[in-house]
């Protein structure tokens, strides 16, 4: 509302200024001269130009993005602040070149930067959005094409200008647009990866690897550009203060990308070479559900040094993200080093020791794990005492055979909860669908896979829908006696 009022005010003022000038001079050219000579008139026109830029931004936003999500907006504002401060710093370096044209070019740069960031966020969002419309693809592709063309034109222009006129402020612009161009390239690559992933029926295992390599290559190009830019700037001007923060961030993310790739490659190599395949006896002796995909494990399973077993493919996907055991969080890279150093006879017991006394008997529903969820929380950190796990046991109880989750814990944080009474989490529905905790998790998972375009799980999805339709609640069994209650109100995808 306020925005609209300000816009209208600026239009009225501009009309007044132009009208007044024309009324005074009666002809086009003298009016222009009159306006440019008068400072207040020019101020009004500058404000008008600024308003035009904002209106233009809104229009482009409407065309290419539609409604912005809250997180995108937040991101945009935060990054704009940094960009504005850095631009002000850049002004101090180039104060000799300072002119309205210069300001206009910086504004344009900032304007285009905003759309690069938004494009980045939008494409990242593809991964979390179950339904991608044709309009979405159309918008992203045209936007990327549009921004990419502009960036390359600017880089080209800056390059020629630097060649003919020597190093001016155009150098900064050329460099900034080159960086933006790399952003567009990486966004485009990620878009292609996400699209391929969405087309395929089953989750694409190698996507995470390609994502890592995309980050690596783009990180490398950016680091190279920044280094070259700073070197040139130091040579011809002074140290470009305004480039420090983005340069540092780029270096850091590049280092992280390199690290991620090395670690995940090492973990996957270890998995393929060091860890044994799980034998059928081992699979039979335990609850043989893979904790990652919650499917039964029959073939192609690997046993980690901590004796936890997973599907090889699931484990690979996990190692691309983290190099720990999903169940007990043992660092597989460190463990494998230890394993090599240990004499073979001691191997089986050694890595298991840290949580050996907490291990449940096979057949119990869920294995406990150290530190869950607050074992090493700042509030409950007990330096000398060992971490006590929160044990979650599945019990079947009651005439309706409702599965009951009993939670016992000795962690100080849970003593508080226990002090009221033993916590009983009961999973139930108001109709006759009864799900065990595992079914429940699986239902959510399958529901998710289903809406993400996977048809393989459709039968389970129906069960979930029925379950969901009956307004399922997880609630505390003792809520009848006034204990704490958890209502699980909604499982929704981000709208």
């Amino acid at each position: 509302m306020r925005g609209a009022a300000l816009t209208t005010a600026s239009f009225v003022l501009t009309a007044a200024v132009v009208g007044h000038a024309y009324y005074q001079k009666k002809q086009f050219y003298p009016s222009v001269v009159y306006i440019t000579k008068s400072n207040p008139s020019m101020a009004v026109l500058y404000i008008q130009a600024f308003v035009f830029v904002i209106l233009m931004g809104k229009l482009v936003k409407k065309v290419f993005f539609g409604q912005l999500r809250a997180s995108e907006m937040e991101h945009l504002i935060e990054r704009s602040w940094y960009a504005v401060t850095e631009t002000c710093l850049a002004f101090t370096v180039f104060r000799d070149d300072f002119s309205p044209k210069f300001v206009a070019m910086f504004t344009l740069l900032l304007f285009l930067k905003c759309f690069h960031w938004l494009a980045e966020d939008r494409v990242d969002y593809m991964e979390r959005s179950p339904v991608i419309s044709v309009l979405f693809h159309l918008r992203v592709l045209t936007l990327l094409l549009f921004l990419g063309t502009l960036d390359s034109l600017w880089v080209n222009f800056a390059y020629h200008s630097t060649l003919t006129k020597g190093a001016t402020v155009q150098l900064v612009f050329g460099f900034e647009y080159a960086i933006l161009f790399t952003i567009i390239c990486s966004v485009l690559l990620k878009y292609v990866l996400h699209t391929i992933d969405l087309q395929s029926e089953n989750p694409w295992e190698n996507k995470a690897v390609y994502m890592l390599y995309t980050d690596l290559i783009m990180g490398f190009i950016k680091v190279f550009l920044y280094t070259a830019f700073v070197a040139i700037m130091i040579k011809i001007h002074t140290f470009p203060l305004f480039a420090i923060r983005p340069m540092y961030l780029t270096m850091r993310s590049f280092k992280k990308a390199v690290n991620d790739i090395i670690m995940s490659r090492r973990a996957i190599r270890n998995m393929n070479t060091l860890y044994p395949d799980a034998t059928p006896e081992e699979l039979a002796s335990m609850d043989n559900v893979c904790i990652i995909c919650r499917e039964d494990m029959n073939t192609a399973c690997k046993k980690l040094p901590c004796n936890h077993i997973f599907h090889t493919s699931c484990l690979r996907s996990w190692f691309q993200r983290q190099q720990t055991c999903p169940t007990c969080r043992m660092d597989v890279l460190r463990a494998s080093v230890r394993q090599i150093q240990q004499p073979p006879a001691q191997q089986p017991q050694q890595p298991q020791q840290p949580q050996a006394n907490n291990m449940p008997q096979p057949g119990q529903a869920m294995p406990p794990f150290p530190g869950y969820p607050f074992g090493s929380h700042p509030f409950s950190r007990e330096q000398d005492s060992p971490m006590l796990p929160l044990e979650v046991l599945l019990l079947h109880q009651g005439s309706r055979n409702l599965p009951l989750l009993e939670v016992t814990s000795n962690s100080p944080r849970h003593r508080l909860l226990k002090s009221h009474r033993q916590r009983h989490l009961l999973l139930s529905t108001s109709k006759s669908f009864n799900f065990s905790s595992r079914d429940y998790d699986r239902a959510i998972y399958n529901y998710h896979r289903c809406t993400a375009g996977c048809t393989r799980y459709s039968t389970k999805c129906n069960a979930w829908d029925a379950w969901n339709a009956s307004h399922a609640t997880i609630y505390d069994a003792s809520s009848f006696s006034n204990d704490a209650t958890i209502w699980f109100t909604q499982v929704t995808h981000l709208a």
Partner: protein
Amino acid sequence: MSGPEGTCFEGGVFPAKIIFPTDYPLTPPKMKFTCEMFHPNIYSDGRVCISILHAPGDDPMGYESSAERWSPVQSVEKILLSVVSMLAEPNAESGANVDASKMWRDERELFNRRAKEIVKKSLGLDKTDTS
């Protein structure tokens, strides 16, 4: 989700959304309260900030050890349980809501009063109705 008994959030019923990524359970879901909340570990837009919902790689607060982070072994119940514990016992060190952290640390009385207001709002009772 209802506020744990014996805490300042007792009696409140707080609606929340859990958003699952496409590669769940490899990456953690996100949780967001859809009602007004005032709590050190909940952002003003409702996003919940607890270690169990963070992937071990990213560390926005810079101090959490990876032992408390997301792993596929975590389930929705565990998340909900963690959030209930968080309501019962905020962690002022990882302040998602700086004002709330400060108030929790220094002016507990004021914080409790503020929490009571939130509870009343969550139940659809206006401040004027009860006073």
